[in-house]
């Protein structure tokens, strides 16, 4: 249980995938203009990340490792992720048509979100167990969501602030992201994992 908690804290705060490991920056910059969209994207990514983390662990442990096909892991994981994303897209389209419309192109783009593949590969490198890889995937997703929601809330504030002309738009977004990343560096060394 303590292990599980440590993994969560480690992935959410200390090794935050977006702000410390710089994975998944594309949706981080792309979908953070509106808080509601960011929430939707966070939810979709959380679902995909956790599920794909588990599925890729299962595929690796029960298929690739016994057959000595470890070198196929990247291809197999991409296949797993693509399927999970496709599945999520169908579910979201059915349950929340508006969220589907708002997320638009970003939903299929979760496939190429490097955080998703990153989690799957890091699970293997860290030799996580089944439960650990669930925790790792979920923690990574919560960390991603936290960063995305905080960032989009800040950007909504910035939208009405008086930003100097050369810094408007993406430039101030980049600077904000950098400052947030600096702030998250403060967690370094909190958990050794």
């Amino acid at each position, binding site marked *: 249980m303590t292990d599980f908690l440590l993994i969560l804290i480690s992935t959410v705060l200390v090794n935050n995938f977006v702000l410390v490991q710089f994975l998944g920056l594309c949706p981080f910059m792309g979908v953070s203009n509106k808080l509601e969209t960011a929430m939707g994207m966070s939810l979709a990514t959380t679902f995909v990340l956790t599920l794909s983390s588990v599925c890729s662990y299962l595929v690796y442990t029960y298929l690739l490792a016994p057959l000595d096909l470890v070198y196929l892991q990247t291809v197999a994981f991409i*296949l797993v992720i693509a*399927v999970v994303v496709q599945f999520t897209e*169908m*579910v979201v389209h059915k349950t929340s048509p*508006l969220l589907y419309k708002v997320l638009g192109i970003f939903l299929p783009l979760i496939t190429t979100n490097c955080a998703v593949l990153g989690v799957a590969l890091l699970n293997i490198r860290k030799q996580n167990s089944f439960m650990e890889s669930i925790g790792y995937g979920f923690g990574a997703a919560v960390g991603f969501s936290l960063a995305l929601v905080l960032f989009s809330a800040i950007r909504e504030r910035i939208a009405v602030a008086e930003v100097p002309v050369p810094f408007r738009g993406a430039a101030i977004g980049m600077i904000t992201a950098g400052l947030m990343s600096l702030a998250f560096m403060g967690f370094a060394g909190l958990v050794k994992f």
Partner: protein
Amino acid sequence: MDSVLSAILVLLGLALVFGLILGYASVRFKIIGNPLVEQIDAILPQTQCGQCGYPGCRPYAQAISDGDAINKCPPGGQSTIDQLAELLNQESIPLDSEHGTEDVRKVAYIREDECIGCTKCIQACPVDAILGAAKLMHTVIVSECTGCDLCVEPCPVDCIDMIPVATTIGSWKWPAPPSPLQIIATDKRVQTEELH
């Protein structure tokens, strides 16, 4: 050779299993129609008046979901636009005056002794709220009438009036409070500065 073969077989097997899962999901989560259109249609006032430029409320709902402007519905007025903006996560915009202005709710009234029984208004009515037959007097079912004005134009003897619905204890509503965006003085300042 063996390892190559097993690699290909494993990938093929994986793809087959995933394909089956997705195939099942696409049947299980099949979308019939466009659910967003239903939600928009439920907000529109269903007067079927055609002032938006579409033949009725449902075609306009379809057009909104395809990206048309949300401010083309005079019978619904500002409250409908606000609800649509809320649903579609857009900024609320004022009514487009090109399509008409917001007015009090009205119902059609046929001055019955002048009616010649031509049935032209019956054909024009989008909601079948006018009763009558050829060469017999017509009349309006008040509870069905949406106040769309479409029957006034075809009447050859101009015996149809649009009467405002009187406010009764049952139909009176509190006036809507001002939008919270305009209450805070600093927000007003930012908005006026952006305009300059």
